[in-house]
C-alpha cells in the first residue's frame, strides 16, 4: 500500500503531532507514505471565500505534482482533504473550471488523481480486521467520543466515504482497537473551524457545547481528525470553560494518536507532549505508565 502524502501547512506546525502520529501509525502498519515534492497550500477557507479561481488552482497545483507519482493521494487534514476533493469534483464536472485551472496553473490536469483521507485509508483500505490483528495493547477502559466535525463527511457529493449525518468509521476503528466508542449527538457539529482567529467567542461557545456533551455521554476523551477541531477544542478548552461553565478537562487526541497507543507506539512517537490538555488520564485507563516514554520533538 503506497500513497502520495499531502501533509498540508497545519501538519508542519500547529498539528505536528498529527503529522508525527500519522507517519508512525502508517509505518507500523506497513503503509508507505511518500511526500508529494514541493506541495503547496490548498488555500483552505480563505481561498474559497475570496477567489473561485484560486480555490481550484491551488489544490490542482499539488494534484498535478502527485499525478506523476502514480498512486492515490492521502491527506490527514480534513480541510486539505475537502479542498483537494472539491477541486477534483469541479475539474471533472465543469469544463470551464478545468480550462481555467489549466490556464492559470499553465499545466494540464484532468481531475483523475484519487484523494483519500487517512481514516478512509485505515478503515477501508487497510481494513478493520487487519487493525484488530495488529493491536498490541487493547484500549479497553478508554471511552472515546469520535468527533468527525464538518469536512470529513460533508458535503456528501464531494467526500462520500461515510454517512454525512451519522458517520461511524472512527467509532469502528476505536472499537477494533478495544476502546468503547460512546454514542453522542454532536459528532458532526461544527467547532467554529476557521473562525478560531476572528470569532473566538463563538468558537468557545461551540467548543464548550461539544466537550460538555461528550462528557455527558460518558466519554473521557475526544478523538478528532482535523487540525482545527483539535486546536479549537484543546487550546481553547480552558477559555471555553471560563466563559461558559466548568467542564472536566477533557483530552482531545488525534485519531492516529489514540490508535497508535493500541498499536504499541510510545507517547513520544505519537507527539503526546503537544497536547494542551494532558492525556495522562487516558494513558492511565489503558494502563500505560504515565511518566515512561515521554519524548519531545527531535
Amino acid at each position: 500500500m503506497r500513497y502520495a502524502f499531502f501533509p498540508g501547512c497545519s501538519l508542519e506546525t500547529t498539528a505536528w503531532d498529527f503529522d508525527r502520529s500519522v507517519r508512525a501509525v502508517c509505518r507500523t502498519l506497513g503503509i508507505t507514505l511518500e511526500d508529494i515534492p514541493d506541495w503547496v497550500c490548498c488555500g483552505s477557507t480563505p481561498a474559497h471565500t475570496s477567489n473561485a479561481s484560486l480555490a481550484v488552482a491551488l489544490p490542482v497545483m499539488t494534484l498535478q505534482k502527485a499525478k506523476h507519482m502514480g498512486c492515490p493521494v492521502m491527506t490527514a487534514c480534513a480541510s486539505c482533504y475537502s479542498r483537494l476533493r472539491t477541486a477534483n469534483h469541479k475539474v471533472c464536472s465543469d469544463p470551464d473550471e478545468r480550462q481555467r485551472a489549466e490556464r492559470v496553473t499553465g499545466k494540464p490536469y484532468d481531475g483523475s488523481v484519487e484523494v483519500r483521507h487517512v481514516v478512509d485509508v485505515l478503515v477501508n483500505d487497510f481494513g478493520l480486521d487487519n487493525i484488530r490483528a495488529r493491536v498490541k495493547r487493547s484500549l479497553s477502559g478508554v471511552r472515546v467520543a469520535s468527533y468527525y466535525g464538518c469536512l470529513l463527511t460533508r458535503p456528501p457529493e464531494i467526500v462520500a466515504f461515510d454517512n454525512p449525518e451519522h458517520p461511524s468509521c472512527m467509532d469502528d476503528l476505536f472499537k477494533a482497537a478495544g476502546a468503547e466508542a460512546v454514542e453522542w449527538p454532536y459528532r458532526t457539529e461544527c467547532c467554529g473551524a476557521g473562525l478560531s482567529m476572528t470569532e473566538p467567542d463563538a468558537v468557545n461557545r461551540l467548543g464548550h457545547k461539544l466537550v460538555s456533551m461528550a462528557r455527558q455521554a460518558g466519554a473521557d476523551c475526544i478523538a478528532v481528525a482535523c487540525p482545527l477541531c483539535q486546536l479549537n477544542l484543546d487550546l481553547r478548552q480552558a477559555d471555553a470553560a471560563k466563559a461558559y461553565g466548568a467542564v472536566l478537562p477533557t483530552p482531545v487526541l488525534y485519531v492516529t494518536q489514540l490508535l497508535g497507543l493500541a498499536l504499541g507506539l510510545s507517547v513520544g512517537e505519537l507527539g503526546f507532549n503537544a497536547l494542551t490538555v494532558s492525556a495522562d488520564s487516558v494513558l492511565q485507563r489503558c494502563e500505560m505508565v504515565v511518566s515512561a516514554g515521554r519524548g519531545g520533538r527531535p
Partner: protein
Amino acid sequence: MENRLESTGTSFLDEVQRRSGTPISACFQCHKCSTGCPIGPEMDVLSSQIMRLIHLGEEKEVLESQGIWMCASCEACSTRCPMGIDIAGVMDTLRMMAVERKVAPPDARAKHFAHSFLQSVRHHGRVYEMGMLVAYKFRSRDFFTDMDKGPKMLMKKKLAFLPIRSGAASEVKEVFKRVEEEKEQ
C-alpha cells in the same frame, strides 16, 4: 414600479445564482439551514433570511450584512437543504461580491484574515502562521484577543519562527498573478 416577481435576467438574484451556480430561487423558506447553523446565534441575518433577501433583490442589506462574514463554511446547510441549494457556496459568492463592490463592513474580521492568509501563501507557497498572525492583527486592529495563545503554542512548538517555504513558491506567485490578471479582464 418594478415587478420583483418577474426576473429580468440582470437582477441581483440572477447574478448571485449565476456566480454561485446554485438555484437560490428554489428556496421555499423551510429554515432548515438556519436551524442547523452552528453560528446562527452570532449572525445578524440568518442564512434562510439571506436567501429571501436575495429573492427580493435587497442587495445592499445582504452585501453589507455581518452575517455573510460569520459563516464557518461547515457545509451543514448545503448538505441538508431539501432543494439542493449550495448555501455555503452562496455565502462565498456574497463575500466576493461585497469585496468587489467595496461594501464589506470595516469590522469584517474574516475578510482581514483571508487576506492575511492568502498573502502568506502568495509569498511562501504555504502558510507562515507567525507572519500571517501579525499581518492579521494589524489589518483587523484587534491586537489583544488571544494574546496568551501565541506563547502557549510556541512552547508546544506549534508555531515556527521562520517560514517553511514550498519548493514551488515561485510557481504559486505566478498563479496568483495570472488569477489577478484574469479578474481584471
